[in-house]
Structures are given as structure tokens and as C-alpha cells.
């Protein structure tokens, strides 16, 4: 059908864009082509996002594999934006460090396509493909910068553990399939309908969950996160920390909505424990960090804990809260890791928190954005993070998860200490030495501006986004 292919356009654009860049890269000389390729990649993102906006209301289903609807359109736009901002942030960063080129751009676009695939899939197969697309792309991206021992280590660790996790997911899917005979996500979650194979089904789900929890780094599957976030180049970390997690969170939302009470009843206690552990371990371990990317890694672990808490409230606007918060989280972390990248000198990332002394005055704009992001992560008002925290806790309390919410609140209080510590270092401790940074390119400034605008607008006028999110949750709950 005509419309079906048409509705796939965002995905096609991304994949084609990536391929075209690969091809062009083969023909063009590296030094001359960077701007062109970069422009192409940016246009690809814009086109993909734009097409997703324009086709959002086409009721498209691709052979029961992909649902191209408001839900996936929303996520497509989100991923396009995340990718766009990543590109803007990494252009100069990568150029300065000599790993900017066709393969860098192409792989990022492929990863973006993988994310879109994950968000759009209503079938395990495209989901698996998307997951692998994202993962494999990221293995490469992390190690992109040659000769960086930390990056190599990060890539090795991420690859090894990611591969194991993927294996878990695949085996889990196989079990589900074995139990239910279908790869359709919604149908395969029908615990009530497959009483005979209940154990197999749950075993499969369990394996899948392990894989997914690993990907969004819930405790105790979180150990790779700090290492990988620290080792990867900052813009890549930004992409990795936001894109993958948001994509997988969309899957979590789907699972929660599709699974409903029957699955929820089985897994809720486990998720409860994981959410609590994640919040506690994430926040407390962050207290001891002296490296900013590691700190942000633990902070992002903790954020996942908050989201799991809200996910438990899947009947009380929890999914909407999770989606909203994942949007908030995406831009906040993009900003945080992005500014870390922008503030870094050429040879390596500025990682030790102590090195940020006095940067608030040497680099006021970027430091201000970092501060803003940190405040948003901490959930202070007028930032997006505050509204995000509010919707999460509202959902959790509405569903009577009072104990969990209390743990969350206490940990949020605790977390302020290390968040503030960054601010303290930026503004309140005198600089010891000043390192001259290269002037930031316009594209990165644009990215910063975008992020700041989004954080503020979500913090002050979240109403529009919330409406959209309510619609899409509504859409997947009542297909």
C-alpha cells in the first residue's frame, strides 16, 4: 500500500542519509567534505523529523511489524532532535580530535534509525534489529577516537556486556515465542491467554527484562555505565546516554501498557526493588565521584530509578510521566555531557570535577548551561527537571507507592549535594589555572541554545508536551 511506505519515510530518510554519507565519503576528500557531509547529516535529521511530524496521523502498520503512528512519530521527532543536537555538539569536538568523517556521521544516523525502529516496533523482530543497530553503531562510535585508551576500554566493556545482554534479549524472545507462538509484542505478553506455558513465558520475559534493564542500566546491571560514560568521548556519551535509554524506555512503556495488570502483578515487586536499589545506589555512589562524567553516569542511573518508580504506576498516568521525564532527561543529559565536551581542552575530556574551578567566569555561557542542566537533573523549579520529577512522583504517589516515593524523595535530597558541588566548583572556588579553549563554533552554540530553550520551555510551559504525550499513551493503550 502506498501510504504504508510513505509513512516509513522518516526511517528511510535516516537510513538513506547514512548510506549516502558513506558513499559520498568514499569519493570525497576528507578535509574538504566535512562541512558538506555535516550539512547533509543535519538535513537528514531535519527531514526525518519533519516528515515524522507531517505523517504523524497516518494510520500505518507495516505487516504487523512496525506501527507508524503518533507514538512512533513523537519518538522519531525526539530522536531526530537528539541526533541533531548530538551532531551539532560533536562537529567541532570530533574535528578537533580528528575522528570526524563520513563513518562518524553515517553511524550516528544508523543508530538514530535503530532508535526509531525500537520505538516504532510492535513486533519483536524489528525491535531486536533496532536494538542491535543501535548497539553495534555505538560500539563503533565509542571507539571512534583512535588511540584513546579510555575509549578503547569503554568500547570493549560496552561491547562485551552489550553482546551478553543482547543474547539474553534474543533468548528471551525465543522463549516468548516458544510459549505463545507469536512475535507480536502485545500478543506475546498475554499471560492470561497462555496458562499452560506461563512459566516459559515469564522466563522469557525475565530474560528480556534483564537485557533491557542492562541497557538502561538499572542496578544491579549498571556496572558498565560509569566506565563507558567516562571513557567515551563526551558528545558520544551524550548520545549514548540519551538516545539509547530513551529508545529503550519507549519499549518499557510499551511493555507496561501492553502487559497491564497480568504482567505487572508478576514483575511489579521486582521492579520495585530494582527501582529502589537504582535510586539508592545511583545517588549514593555519585556522592563519591570526582570525575564529572562518572558522576553524571551515576546520576543518569539514578534518573532511571525514578522512572522505574513511575513505570510501576502504569495505571495512574505513569507511562505518560515516564515519557515526559525521558524527554526531559534526554535534553538535560545531552546538555550536561555536551557542555562537558564543549568545556574540554583538545587532548582529552575535562573530567576531574576539580578542573572546573572558576570556569563559571572563564566560560560563562557554557558553564551556565551546565548549571542549568545540573539543576534540571536535580529537579529544581523552573527547569524541566522539576516538572519531570513532579509528574513522576505524582504518578508514584497516585498508585500508592508511598514507600518508594519516600526513598526517591530522600535520595533526591541527597543527590542535591553532588549536583550542587558541580555548581560550587564552577562558581564559588577560585580558578587555579586557566586553559584557553578554542572558540566554540556557531553550531554548538545553537545546540546549547536549543537545549536551554527546551529545558526552560518544558519547565515553564509543559502543557503542550504533556498533551501530546497523553495522546500517544492513549493511542497505544487503546489500539
Amino acid at each position: 500500500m502506498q501510504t504504508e511506505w510513505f509513512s516509513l519515510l522518516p526511517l528511510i530518510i535516516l537510513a538513506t542519509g547514512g548510506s549516502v554519507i558513506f558513499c559520498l565519503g568514499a569519493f570525497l576528500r576528507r578535509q574538504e567534505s566535512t562541512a558538506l557531509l555535516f550539512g547533509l547529516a543535519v538535513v537528514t535529521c531535519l527531514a526525518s523529523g519533519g516528515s515524522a511530524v507531517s505523517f504523524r496521523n497516518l494510520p500505518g502498520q507495516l505487516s504487523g511489524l512496525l506501527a507508524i503512528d503518533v507514538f512512533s512519530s513523537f519518538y522519531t521527532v525526539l530522536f531526530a532532535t537528539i541526533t541533531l543536537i548530538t551532531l551539532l555538539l560533536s562537529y567541532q569536538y570530533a574535528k578537533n580530535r580528528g575522528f570526524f568523517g563520513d563513518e562518524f556521521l553515517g553511524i550516528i544516523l544508523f543508530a538514530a534509525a535503530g532508535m526509531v525502529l525500537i520505538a516504532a516496533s510492535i513486533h519483536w523482530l524489528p525491535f531486536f534489529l533496532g536494538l542491535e543497530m543501535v548497539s553495534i553503531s555505538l560500539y563503533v562510535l565509542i571507539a571512534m577516537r583512535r588511540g584513546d585508551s579510555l575509549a578503547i576500554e569503554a568500547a570493549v566493556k560496552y561491547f562485551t556486556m552489550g553482546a551478553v545482554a543482547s543474547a539474553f534479549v534474543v533468548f528471551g524472545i525465543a522463549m516468548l515465542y516458544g510459549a505463545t507462538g507469536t512475535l507480536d509484542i502485545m500478543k506475546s505478553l498475554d499471560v492470561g491467554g497462555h496458562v499452560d506455558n506461563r512459566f516459559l513465558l515469564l522466563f522469557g520475559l525475565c530474560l528480556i527484562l534483564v537485557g533491557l534493564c542492562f541497557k538502561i542500566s538499572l542496578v544491579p546491571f549498571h556496572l558498565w555505565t560509569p566506565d563507558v560514560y567516562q571513557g567515551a568521548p563526551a558528545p558520544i556519551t551524550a548520545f549514548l546516554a540519551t538516545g539509547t535509554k530513551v529508545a529503550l524506555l519507549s519499549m518499557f512503556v510499551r511493555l507496561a501498557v501492553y502487559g497491564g495488570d497480568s504482567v505487572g502483578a508478576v514483575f511489579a515487586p521486582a521492579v520495585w526493588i530494582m527501582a529502589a536499589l537504582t535510586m539508592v545506589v545511583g545517588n549514593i555512589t555519585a556522592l563519591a565521584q570526582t570525575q564529572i562524567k562518572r558522576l553524571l553516569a551515576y546520576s543518569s542511573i539514578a534518573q532511571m530509578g525514578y522512572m522505574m518508580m513511575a513505570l510501576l504506576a502504569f495505571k495512574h498516568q505513569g507511562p505518560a510521566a515516564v515519557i515526559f521525564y525521558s524527554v526531559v532527561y534526554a535534553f538535560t543529559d545531552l546538555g550536561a555531557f555536551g557542555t562537558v565536551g564543549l568545556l574540554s581542552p583538545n587532548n582529552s575530556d575535562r573530567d576531574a570535577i576539580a578542573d572546573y574551578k572558576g570556569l563559571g567566569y572563564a566560560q560563562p555561557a557554557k558553564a551556565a548551561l551546565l548549571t542549568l542542566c545540573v539543576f534540571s537533573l536535580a529537579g529544581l523549579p523552573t527547569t524541566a527537571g522539576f516538572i519531570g520529577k513532579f509528574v513522576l512522583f505524582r504518578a508514584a504517589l497516585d498508585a500508592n507507592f508511598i514507600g518508594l516515593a519516600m526513598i526517591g524523595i530522600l535520595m533526591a535530597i541527597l543527590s542535591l549535594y553532588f549536583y550542587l558541588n558541580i555548581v560550587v566548583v564552577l562558581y564559588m572556588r577560585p580558578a587555579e589555572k586557566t586553559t584557553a579553549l578554542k572558540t566554540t563554533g556557531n553550531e554548538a552554540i545553537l545546540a546549547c541554545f536549543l537545549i536551554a530553550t527546551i529545558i526552560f520551555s518544558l519547565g515553564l510551559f509543559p502543557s503542550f508536551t504533556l498533551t501530546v504525550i497523553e495522546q500517544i499513551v492513549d493511542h497505544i493503550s487503546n489500539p
Partner: protein
Amino acid sequence: MKTALITLLIAPLLGALYQIVFGNRSPRRLAEVVSCAVILVSFVMATVAFFLPGQQETIVLGHWITVDTFSATMDIHCDSLAAIMALMVTFVSLLITIYSVSYMSHDHDYARYFAYLNLFVFFMLVIVLADNLLFLFLGWEGVGFCSYALIGFRYEALANARAGRKAFLLTRIGDIGLGIAISLFFVTCHTLSITAINAQATSLSAGAAMTLGFLLLWSATGKSAQLPLLVWLPDAMAGPTPVSALIHAATMVTAGVYLLIRLFPVISQAPEVLLAIASVGTATALFAACAAMVQRDIKRVLAYSTISQVGYMFLAIGVGDIIGSMFHLLTHAFFKSLLFLSAGAVIHALHDERDITKMGESVRRHLPAVFIVFLAGSLALGGVPPAAGFFSKGRILLATLQHGGMAYKAIWVCATFTALLTTLYTFRLFFMVFTGKPAVPRKSGIRAVPQLMEWVLWPLALFALFAGFLNLPHLQAGGGWLAGYLAGTPGAVADLHATPSLEWAVENGDSLLALGGLILAYFLYGPKNILGWRTLDASARKATTWLFSGFGLDRLYEIFWVTPYEKISQFLWHTVDETFLDQGLLRVTNLFPLLANTLQGFSSGILSTSIKMLLFGFAAFLIFLAV
């Protein structure tokens, strides 16, 4: 009348404002003139108020606080009591302000001094005239503040500042009583107007009346330096002498007495309170008289004597004779300010020498005028007939004797004994200052006293000698003009209705007592030093040291109040606030980094550990599923 009263009240305030705003920038002479002039205006207005008929008048100056049923207005109520008090206050203030001009002529900080002084007169007049208790409280605390500021006027010496602080603190402890009393008045009478309260005094329940009475007594003891809050007054002598004369002799210390007289209808509802007042008064009188016996500082002698005399006023209230109390208050104001001012002249002449053991014959020779007025004052204070003190004290002793009950008889004995002591210490002071050889040689010479200072003393001396005629007993056929004037005051008993024989006996007894005291003093402390006590005082003995320090009351306060207070303060600060609350919290929060370090141990960065952790998580999941 209205204008007169308002002018009476406002003029000193305007004077103070003038000093505050223009003060040091205006010519010195102008500042002095202004400060005297405003008091003069007040005095004239007070005279008008005093003589105008139809005195009972309440004037609302303004609404102050109205919330719900609570209403405090700034209104003044002028009856005969207030009028005569106002007259006395303005008169004494006027003389003392004039005296101050001369006394302060070498001080550069005159603007501040006159500002405080004028402000003080204003606040004092507020106390005198206020009808609303809260407005009275304004004056009440205001005079406390001025007293504090003036005692510590010469701030360079910390001792002065400390004395001021002590005065403020102890009077404010008394003020709490008044504050609570005001609250209780509001709760029980639903009004704070003194006239209204007095009107419904009889409808107060016994308990309320008693509580109120004790609260008022409490507040009066603070302001009037009675037991147990008297220790501030001797120290207050650190202030300039005119201040001592005005605030700590004539006016402020009698404010407590005045308050009790004002609210006598309430107090009289509770006989227990009356007895308490009488006892406190007598005890204080005796106590202070004993202490005055051994003081060597001329001003401290006078300070203790003030305390003692105010005790008499309390006693008078305690026996229900508020006219007697008022009578003594007035005469005391005259002769005590006279004594203080002449003492000030002596001190001035001797280059700030206050030790009476270093004075003697030469003082009289150089300052003959001061000698004469001081003698007049001493006669009045010593109660030698026919000076003022004789009649006022006599009326109090008579009233006490007439009052029934054994307790009052005992009080009468004490009071009479105190009268003897009074004569004794008065003339001890007199003899030691003006006669004989100094017990201790003095280094400094004697200079002349400025004319202005001397000039002021004469009218006071006249009053000291003859103010007694304001209210002559029946025996002298005086008819008691003052009693008649004050008869309209609520609760006043104009006539004591004593039998002539009793009156005769008391009067003669008192005369004999006074003369006896005088003669005894002559033997003990006279110029001839017949019994040798004159020189003995200079050397410290155990008993006298004890008396000297006011029965060690200061020390008691030190041990039981000041030291513990400071210790508690330090304890709360260091132990509770810093160690327990602050450090404790810090210690609790320090647990988190510890915990963080422990948790950090899990993420060792070793790949196989991470994988094992993953598998462990999976296993946990499975186990969970199985369960």
C-alpha cells in the same frame, strides 16, 4: 486645659527631637536654652493644670493599637494626683536641667545629654498622665531606657555602661510584671484604661485582684528599687549627678509608688497584697538604711537612703494611706534632689572626689552656701522637726500604728527603728562631709562651685524645709491642704482620724527619735570624733564590708543568676548547638560518603565482575520468579 495638657506633655519631646536633629550642630547656648525652655513650658503648663478647676479630664491624643477587642489609645487623664505629680516632676526637672547646664559645661556631648534628659521628662510625664495602661507602659519603659542611657552616659568607662545595663535589666525584670499585669487587666477587665479599671475594681474576683496586685508590686519593686530588685540603684550612681538627682531620687524611682497609688483601688481589693507591699517597703527601708550606714561614697549613701525612703512610701501604700505616700513622695523629691545636687556641687568642687572619709571642715569653709542647703536637706531627710521629712514620715508612721493587726505593729516597730537609723546615717553623712578633719588625707584641692549650680539649690532648700507645711497634722492645726487636694483620688483616705493623744504621742516620739539620732550621730561621727567611729569606717571590718556591699545581695545575684546564666549560655552554645545539633548532624551526614565509598567498591571496573553481576541479577530475577 486640653491645650495645656498636651503642651505639657509634648514640649519635652519636641526639645528632645530638637537635640537629636540639630544637637551638636546648633550653638551650644541655643541647645541649652532650648532644653531648659521646653521644661519651663512644661512647668508653666503643669502649674496651669494644677490650679485650673475641673481637673478631671481625659484627652485622647491618638489611637495607638486596635485589634479586635484589644484597644490601646494614647490618652491622658489629669486628676489632682496627676496634676500635683506633674507639677513636682516639671519643677524638679526644670531646676535640674538648669543645674545641668552648668554641670555639663565642659562636656562636648551635651546634645546627647540634653536629648536624653528631655526625653526622660517626656516619658516621666507619660507615666504621670497616661490613662491607658499600655501608654503608661510606653513611659514606663521609656524612662527605663533613658535611665540606662544616662547612667552609662560616660561610656568610656565600661563600669558606667555596666551599671546602666544592670539598671535596665533589673528594672525590666520588674517591667515584665507590669506587662503581665496589663495582659491580665485586658483579659479580666477588657479595658486598659486606668479610670475604667478603677471603676470596676470592686467587681474583680479575689484571685484576679490578688494576682494583679502582686504583679503590680513586682513591677513597682523593679522601678522603685525595692527588695529584691534594688541592687541596681547604688550602681546607678555612676551616672552624672544631676541624673541621679532627677531620675534616681526625685522621679523615676518613685514611678513604682505612683503606679501603685494610681491603681490603688485594684490593690486595695487584696489585703494580702497590701501586707506584702508594707512588708517589702519596711524591709527595704530597714535594709537600705543599714547599708547606708557604712557607705563611703557620698552618692551611694544617698542612693541607699533613696531606697530606704521609697520603702516608706511603699509602707504608706501598704497601710492604705496613699496620701501619706504621695506626701512623702513629694517631700522626698525635694529634699533628695537637693541633697544630690549639693552632693554634686561638693563632688564638682573636690574634682570628682566622692569618698566622704576624705572630706571635712575645709569643704564647709570653701562652700558655705552648699553647707547650708545640705544642712537643710539633711534636716528634712533626718526627719528633724519642722523640716519636710518630719511631717511626711510622721504621717506614715502614724498611719502604720493605727492600722490593725500584729503584723503591722511589727512593721511599725521596724519603721520607727529605721527612722532612727535614717537620722543617724543622714547626719553621719553631714558630719563627715562638712565637719572635722578628713579621716583619710585628700590630695586634690577645692575649687569654687559655679553660680548657676548654687542658685538652683536655694528653692529646693526652701521646699525641703517647708514642704511639710503642705499637709500639717491636725495637731498643728494645718488641716492638711494636700490631703484635701488629693481627696478625690480613688482610694484616698484624706483624714487618718487619729485621736489627738495618739497623734501627740507619735509626733513627739518621732521628734525625740530624730533629735536622739542627731545627737548620737554627733557623738559617733561628729567633728570631735568622740567615739571614734568616724575613723573606724575608713578601715574595713567584716560586718561593715558586708553591709557595705548591701548585704552581699550583689554577690548573691552573681552566684545564683549571672554565673549560671552565662554558664547555661555557653553550655547551650557549645554543647547543644555546636556539638550536639551541628556536629551531630554533620556526623550523620558523614555516613553517606562512607556508604558511597562502600558502594563504589562494587564498581571495580573489572569486566568479569560486571558480567558476574549481570548474571547474578539474572539469577536473582529467576529466583524471584520461582518464588
